[in-house]
């Protein structure tokens, strides 16, 4: 056998010599290069607080704008629209908000990802912190994705607000002082689903298909905390990182199992494209249980199949069909007038669903409004410590129909929502009503089996005067 670099075996010394020369040469070159880089970066002036100048506050988020979870892109796009709207009115206390959205592809660099090869949530977050010097990370998305950076942001003292995920990871105020969630925990959501099942289908055999990370695990934990008996064989997971044929092979098996075990109520903790795949495979297998779909994976426009009609979900915003709701009117106005790009809202400006608000937009608008409210309460003196204090003291007014409240010991965010049913999922001719709220009630609860589900009337917070 011959080798390519054969013939120099007797030249050990020369080889080392050459190696050393090469290493030193390359290090020197890199060094000289970096000298310039270092000088260049030290030239940019900053005040005492990163990201804050007399005229502006720079904040950022790592969110999926392409790839498997790109459908969530309009969440942060709606937030960006709110910030542009606020800036058009002179900003907050004279400072404009500069919102940087970095594409991290949900930390899954696969199909459709245009963030670039090798881009991760960590690398994008590092860029936000070390290059853009953001004041805070606001509205970043994804359970597994954000789980990889919470220590980084914490250790570097960067506030990490309104993480778009229902994981209970964000509710650890002792360990992570600067970390705040936004939506109800997946446990709480599952407990409300369990409440519905016990009330409406008390004899149902229950199963769950969850994403193979904390999203699915927390969802299951909530069902079990509500004392729903779920056989081990009916607790199933999927891996979001695999290709479509591989995903389908696993799902066919899972759904066949549920069908064979005569499960007639299935809770899905899945993202919209997977929800769609599950519903289609179940149809092909001739299986039609009562579906209960996490708010995260139920958006009818993203799921895009009429098979979803009849499914139960949780909604913590007013029904988007309620055109009389003042927040719905306000968000519609903001998105119509201040989109960074019309392409940010692929279904809003063109196509059969043009002009239809969806829950993603209300979500993004909600946390953007909340951030503005917190920032406004600080007055002229904007610091990170001040912001964290404001998070637990400000009484936020957002589109959400359950109150958004944080305290020194609770950083989760919303505590529940209303039960809703998907009633249409085809292109509506007029007055789109995708989701109908079931009854005029809000259900709130905590994560553990000891916190009961509490029923209350939904609230509509008045829009602050300076916003309208």
């Amino acid at each position, binding site marked *: *056998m*011959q080798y390519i670099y054969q013939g120099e075996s007797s030249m050990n010394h020369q080889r080392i010599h050459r190696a050393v020369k090469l290493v030193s040469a390359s290090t020197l070159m890199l060094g000289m290069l970096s000298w310039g880089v270092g000088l260049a970066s030290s030239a940019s002036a900053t005040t005492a607080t990163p990201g804050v100048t007399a005229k502006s506050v720079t904040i950022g988020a790592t969110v999926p704008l392409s790839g498997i979870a790109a459908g969530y892109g309009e969440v942060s796009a709606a937030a960006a629209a709110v910030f542009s709207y606020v800036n058009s009115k002179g900003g907050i206390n004279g400072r404009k908000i500069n919102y940087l959205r970095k594409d991290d592809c949900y930390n899954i660099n696969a199909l459709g990802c245009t963030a670039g090869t090798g881009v991760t949530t960590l690398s994008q977050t590092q860029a936000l912190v070390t290059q853009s010097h953001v004041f805070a990370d606001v509205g970043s998305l994804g359970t597994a994705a954000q789980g990889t950076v919470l220590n980084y942001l914490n250790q570097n003292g960067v506030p990490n607000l309104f993480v778009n995920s229902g994981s209970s990871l964000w509710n650890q105020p002792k360990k992570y002082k600067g970390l705040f969630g936004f939506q109800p925990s997946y446990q709480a959501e599952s407990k409300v689903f369990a409440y519905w099942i016990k009330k409406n289908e008390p004899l149902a055999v229950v199963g769950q298909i969850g994403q193979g990370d904390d999203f699915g695990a927390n969802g299951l934990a909530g069902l079990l905390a509500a004392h729903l008996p779920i056989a081990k064989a009916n607790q199933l997971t999927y891996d979001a990182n695999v290709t479509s044929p591989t995903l389908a092979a696993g799902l066919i098996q899972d759904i066949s199992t549920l069908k064979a075990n005569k499960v007639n109520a299935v809770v899905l903790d899945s993202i919209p494209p997977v929800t769609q795949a599950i519903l289609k495979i179940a149809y*092909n297998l*001739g299986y039609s249980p009562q579906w209960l779909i996490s708010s995260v994976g139920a958006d009818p426009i993203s799921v895009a199949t009429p098979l979803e009609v009849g499914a139960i979900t949780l909604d913590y915003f007013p029904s988007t069909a309620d055109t009389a709701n003042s927040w719905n009117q306000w968000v519609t106005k903001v998105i119509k007038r201040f989109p960074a790009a019309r392409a940010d809202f692929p279904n809003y400006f063109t196509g059969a669903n043009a002009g239809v608000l969806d829950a993603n937009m209300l979500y993004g608008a909600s946390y953007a409004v909340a951030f503005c409210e917190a920032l406004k309460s600080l007055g002229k003196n904007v610091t990170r410590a001040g912001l964290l204090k404001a998070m637990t003291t400000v009484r936020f007014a957002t589109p959400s129909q359950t109150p958004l409240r944080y305290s020194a010991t609770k950083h989760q965010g919303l505590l529940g929502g209303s039960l809703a049913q998907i009633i249409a999922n085809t292109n509506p001719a007029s007055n789109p009503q995708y989701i109908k709220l079931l009854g005029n009630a809000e259900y709130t609860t905590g994560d553990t089996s000891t916190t009961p589900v509490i029923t209350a009337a939904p609230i509509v917070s008045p829009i602050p005067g300076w916003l309208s």
Partner: protein
Amino acid sequence: MSTLLTSRIMTDVFGGITSGAVIALVALCLVIVWKSTNVLNFAQGAMGMFATFVGMNLVFHDTNYWLCLVLSVATGLVVGGLTERVLIRPLYGKPEINPIVVMVGFLGLLEALVPAIWASSFNTVPSPFSQVYFQSHGNTVLLSPFVLYQIALALGVMLVVALLFQYTTLGLKMRAAALAPEVSRLLGVRVNRLLTLGWMLSSGIGALAGVIVSTGHTLDATNLDGIFVSAFIAAAVGGLESPLGAVIGGLLIGLAQQFILNYWSANLAPLAGVIVLLISLAIKPQGIFTRTVTRRV
């Protein structure tokens, strides 16, 4: 009969054959290339998907499914031939790592090139046959017209290849060229041309595998990646030399996957290949279907 068809065992057998047939097909491609040129084609899956994209992407522009399929296979043939001529020919007689590295590079190149050319969408390639599974007294038989089509296509291609090698002069020449290139050359066989033909054939079949896997799913450049690894192991189980061994190895791995999926854990299905490989190595390290050959130095 009907209870047998819907039983758990038969469900697994159907599922296993469905995935095993494609693994076997790709394994067959690897064996054809290995036999003719002693190259391990790490880009087999990516080449197949590239060809699949050329054809099947037109489905989204209202082109007939069958026309797209033919176009994909035709592209596969061309890509295979070009690859052998441009990338592999300069490397004959070089250390075995060189073609491995080149094909790994080609794999990376193609898997980046495909999404660069065809902006990936989450559109599903429509199936020409119904994907609804047959039902028997309320129970599912894990077969649908679409699944039958997949299996029939894969097995049909294997049969054609077997006939080609066994009963045609071309097949005889190809076998001769692979076995004893120097003697064949002396006997007037145009060996170089046959080597190219081997690559074309393998790449064309690879394209067909890509079409089978992608129908009913989203088109993605990496659709064949997992299958390639399984196929590689299947080919190794058979000894890399034996087409029949590769096909049997592929079906075995498909079945093993399905049984692991059903009785153990869905997450562990990819381990099927490792397990089958370990067992076969324990039985016969040179591959189940090879004659022992003394290595010349």
